[in-house]
C-alpha cells in the first residue's frame, strides 16, 4: 500500500495519460478500421487492393517498430511536426485499425448476401447499403471480438512509455529510480489495468445484451 500511496503523484497522472491515449486511439481506430473494412469489401478493385495491402503490411509489423518509425524516422521527413503524444496516438491507431478492419469485415460476412441484394433491388447505392443495412448489423454481431481488440489496444498503449509518453507503462522505471519496491509497483499497475479492462468488459456485456440480433 505504501508504494501506491507514496507515489500517487506518479500513478494518478500516468494512468490518466494511459486512459487519454486509449480513448483517442480507440475512437481513431474504430473510425479508420471501419473505413478500411469498407475499402476491403468495396466493388472497386483498387480500393480492395489498398485495404488488403494496408492490413497485410501493418498486421505483420511489430508495434514497437511502428512506434520507432513515427518517433525516430518520421521527423526526418520534415512534413508536419508532431509531439510524442500525437506520435503515440498515431502509432496505436495505425496499428489497431488493421485489426479492427478485420473484425468489422468478419462482421460484414455474417450479414446474409440477400440483404445487400434486396437493397440493390430497391435502388440503394453501395454507400447506402453498407451504411444503412449491412454495417449496423455487422457491428452488432462482432461486439466481443471488437472489445477484445480494444483491450489489446489498452495494453499495447504501455509501449508509449518507452517513447517519451509518461503513461502507466513507465511507472516501473520511475519507481525503480525512486528506490521503492518495483514488484509491488508492478502489482499495482496490473491492478489498474484489471480495473480498466473490467470497465471494458462491462461495456461489452451491456452492448451485447442491448444489441443482440435475432436471427
Amino acid at each position, binding site marked *: 500500500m505504501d508504494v501506491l500511496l507514496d507515489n500517487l503523484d506518479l500513478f494518478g497522472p500516468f494512468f490518466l495519460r494511459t486512459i487519454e491515449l486509449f480513448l483517442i486511439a480507440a475512437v481513431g481506430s474504430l473510425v479508420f478500421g471501419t473505413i478500411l473494412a469498407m475499402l476491403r469489401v468495396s466493388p472497386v478493385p483498387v480500393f480492395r487492393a489498398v485495404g488488403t495491402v494496408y492490413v497485410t503490411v501493418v498486421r505483420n509489423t*511489430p508495434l*514497437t*517498430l511502428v512506434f*520507432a*518509425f513515427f518517433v*525516430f*524516422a*518520421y*521527423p*526526418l*521527413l*520534415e512534413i508536419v511536426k508532431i*509531439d*510524442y503524444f500525437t506520435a503515440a496516438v498515431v502509432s496505436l491507431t495505425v496499428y489497431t485499425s488493421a485489426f479492427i478492419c478485420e473484425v468489422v469485415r468478419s462482421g460484414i460476412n455474417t450479414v446474409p448476401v440477400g440483404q445487400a441484394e434486396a437493397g440493390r433491388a430497391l435502388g440503394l447505392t453501395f454507400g447506402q447499403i453498407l451504411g444503412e443495412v449491412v454495417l449496423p448489423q455487422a457491428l452488432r454481431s462482432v461486439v466481443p471480438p471488437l472489445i477484445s481488440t480494444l483491450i489489446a489496444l489498452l495494453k499495447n498503449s504501455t509501449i508509449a*512509455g*518507452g*517513447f*517519451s509518453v*509518461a503513461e502507466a507503462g*513507465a511507472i*516501473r*522505471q*520511475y*519507481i*525503480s*529510480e*525512486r*528506490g*521503492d*519496491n*518495483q*514488484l509491488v509497483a508492478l502489482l499495482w499497475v496490473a491492478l489498474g489495468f484489471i480495473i480498466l479492462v473490467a470497465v471494458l468488459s462491462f461495456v461489452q456485456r451491456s452492448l451485447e445484451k442491448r444489441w443482440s440480433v435475432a436471427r
Partner: protein
Amino acid sequence: MRIRTLAVGLLAGGLLLTACGKEGTPAAPGGDASGANTAALPTYTVAQNVDLAGSPVFTKIKGAGTVTVGVKDDQPGLGQKDPTTGKFEGFDIEIARMVAAGLGIAPDKIKFTTVDSAAREQAIANGQVDYYVGTYTITDKRKAQVSFAGPYFQAGQDLLVRKDDTSITGPETLKGKKVCSVTGSTPIQRVRDQGLTEPSNIVEFQKYSQCVDKLLTKEVDALTTDDAILKGYAAQDKDNLKVVGKPFSQEPYGIGLNKDDKVLRTKIDDLLQASLDDGTWQKIYDATLGQSGATATKPTIQRY
C-alpha cells in the same frame, strides 16, 4: 532526398530495435590511441586462499568457481560491450575485474551479465548477479533493498549539448529548452521536480544513445545525466558534442551487493581502499574515462 532520409531513418529504427542498445556504439575512448595520454590498463594479482566466513554470496562464488557480475553494456568509457569482439571494457568493468581478482577469481572465471537500471535490485536480490558495477548511485532508499560497497567513483549530474550551442551554460539556463534522458531516470525526475524546464519540453527514451541521436538532429537541446556517462559520449563525437561542465548533484557510484552480506561488503570496501592507496584506481581511471581528458577526484569509501 526525403526518400533517402526516410530510408536511413527506417534502417536506423530497425537496427535500433534489433540490436538492443548496441546502436551507434563506437570504439571506447580507451580503444584508440588519441593523443598523448594513452595509459595501459593495470593487471590485477589474483589473491590466493581467500576465505570470507559468514558470507553466503562468497560461499556461492567459491563453490561455483566463477563470479557473475552485473554491468551495463552501452556506456562508453564506463561499461561497454565491444560489438565486434564481444568483450566488455570501461572503468566499471575494470573495477569489477579488480574486485574479482581480490576475491581470488581468475579473469577467465568472470562472467559479465548486462542488467538494465530498472532490473538491478531484482537481479541482486534474486542472486542472478553476485555483485553489480554499473553507474549505480548510492541512495538511502536503495539501501533498503540492496547494500553498497564504495563509492568507487564520484559523479554529478551535468548536461551534454551541441558544440555550437552557447545558450546552455548550466541547469538554470534550461528554461524553454528540450531536455532528454532515460525514462524515469533520477536526472530527468530532478529536472521535472525542480522545474528546470517546462514539462512539455521533457523527452524520455529507453537509451541514452537515442537522446544523442535526437540531440544531433536538433530535436532536443540537451541530454542530462551523470557527467561520467556524458563524457563518454562527448569523447566519441568531439566535433559535435560537449559537456557543459557544471555538475549540479552528487552521484556516488557504489558496487551493488546482497543486502545481508556485510562480510562481503567489508571485503570489497577493503579492496577498493587498497586500490585507491596503491595507485591502481588512478591507473584504471587514466586508461578508461581519463581518455576524455577530464580529471577525477578520488572518492572516499563510506563504510556503514
